[in-house]
């Protein structure tokens, strides 16, 4: 009797797990499961407010090695030529819904008022690394370009690609204008290495790692994410169904 019950529980568990796979393929069920990210975003911003700062750490808490992840080298002829020239020719276009489109050189970016922050980078996979980032607040750059009232999202287009798709990411204005959201060009007091996103990467410290676009070459202000690439607001969101809101 006990054995059959055990078998019953076992087969019940197996059936339920298989059921979860079937649910995970159903479009309506996916829509329901995927809706949780909006609730988390709402909860986080209700509990913490829109401007809560991420923890900043002491210099002695910095990770000995800040590993690279994802694409670790765009490795295109253009990028390699730029890297060989110390990124002197790198330009970051700021365009879309702005009054004054910009094409910022690294020298211009470095001349802008910068912020230094020792923060924790949390990968969606589960690991964390602490590093000291130095760069220009995105809000400063957007103000210089004259962000339009119609802009709702900021899109970051990158020089790297995978599976034939260029990497890109996006933030809403709450994250984009957050004081710790910076265009970083230095890590641990040295210019960014190729592995970590040279010459400039995004830091948005209340979000998981895949939001922190590397090799940023264009910043576009838009009213909607629908028309961009796969329409989900980022490479991993398009390709694999990751949450667009990556605060958790």
């Amino acid at each position: 009797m006990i054995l059959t019950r055990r078998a019953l529980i076992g087969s019940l568990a197996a059936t339920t797990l298989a059921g979860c796979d079937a649910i995970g393929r159903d479009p309506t069920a996916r829509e329901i499961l995927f809706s949780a990210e909006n609730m988390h975003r709402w909860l986080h911003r209700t509990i913490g407010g829109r401007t809560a700062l991420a923890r900043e750490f002491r210099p002695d808490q910095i990770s000995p090695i800040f590993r690279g992840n994802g694409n670790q080298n765009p490795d295109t002829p253009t990028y390699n030529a730029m890297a060989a020239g110390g990124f002197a020719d790198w330009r970051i276009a700021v365009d879309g819904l702005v009054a004054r489109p910009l094409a910022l050189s690294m020298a211009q970016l470095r001349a802008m008022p910068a912020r230094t922050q020792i923060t924790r980078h949390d990968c969606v996979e589960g690991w964390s690394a602490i590093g000291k980032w130095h760069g220009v607040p995105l809000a400063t750059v957007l103000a210089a370009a004259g962000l339009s009232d119609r802009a709702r999202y900021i899109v970051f287009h990158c020089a790297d690609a995978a599976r034939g798709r260029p990497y890109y990411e996006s933030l809403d204005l709450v994250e984009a204008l957050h004081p710790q959201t910076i265009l970083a060009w230095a890590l641990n007091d040295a210019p960014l290495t190729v592995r970590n996103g040279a010459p400039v990467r995004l830091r948005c410290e209340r979000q998981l790692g895949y939001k922190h676009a590397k090799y940023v070459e264009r910043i576009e202000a838009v009213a909607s994410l629908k028309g961009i690439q796969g329409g989900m607001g980022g490479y991993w969101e398009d390709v694999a169904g990751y949450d667009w809101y990556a605060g958790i």
Partner: protein
Amino acid sequence: MDAPAPDSVPRAIARHRLATRLWHWVNAVAVFVLLGSGLMIFNAHPHLYWGQYGANFDHPWLSLPRWPGWLTIPSTYDLALGRRWHLFFAPVLAFGLLAFMIASLINRHFQRDLRLRRAELAPRQVWRDVRAHLAFRFHDPADPGRYNLLQKASYALIIFGLIPLMIFTGMAMSPAMDAAWPWLIDLFGGRQSARSIHFIAAALIAGFVIVHLALVILAGAWNGVRSMITGRWRVPER
């Protein structure tokens, strides 16, 4: 059970309140999904660390092989979908516990059924309860609806200890929650410590589920399941 009970001890008693029954089944689903999807998320980086940071070049205190597909949700590697399952059911677990706690204070389930009494903690009584449990005697024939010390202690540990620990260590892994409530990081000594504690607490909850299911089977599976659905529990004859 439908026949009128002739003796003084009723043959069936109202055992579980509505709030307890609702919470039990919501939780059964949530814990099942959270454990399966949690193992999927763990597979993305099957190493655990102590402290604020921890990645491939740092020293893990535990590295495990990846969990097999028959234990994970979904069954093939898909971190994004595992996270979708996990993050959908995490608030179900958290707000479900909160609702159950409020209901159980109002209907006095906590005060009546889970409060430890001084007499129960006397060493002789503790020893008697342990011996009764080892002999698979789970109920006091004189007062069959009452939980004994071991039952109270394990339910209290789960309700007030392990599930809240899961919820708070889970929140501590969210970078946005860490910004909102910085004390979460301090409470657990860092995000990677919180991740380790999250995993340990999950293992303990999985252990509780296994022991719980085994004891339900030993104590009479059908009677137990029915009582958790209808509330009515037939007092075992002895």
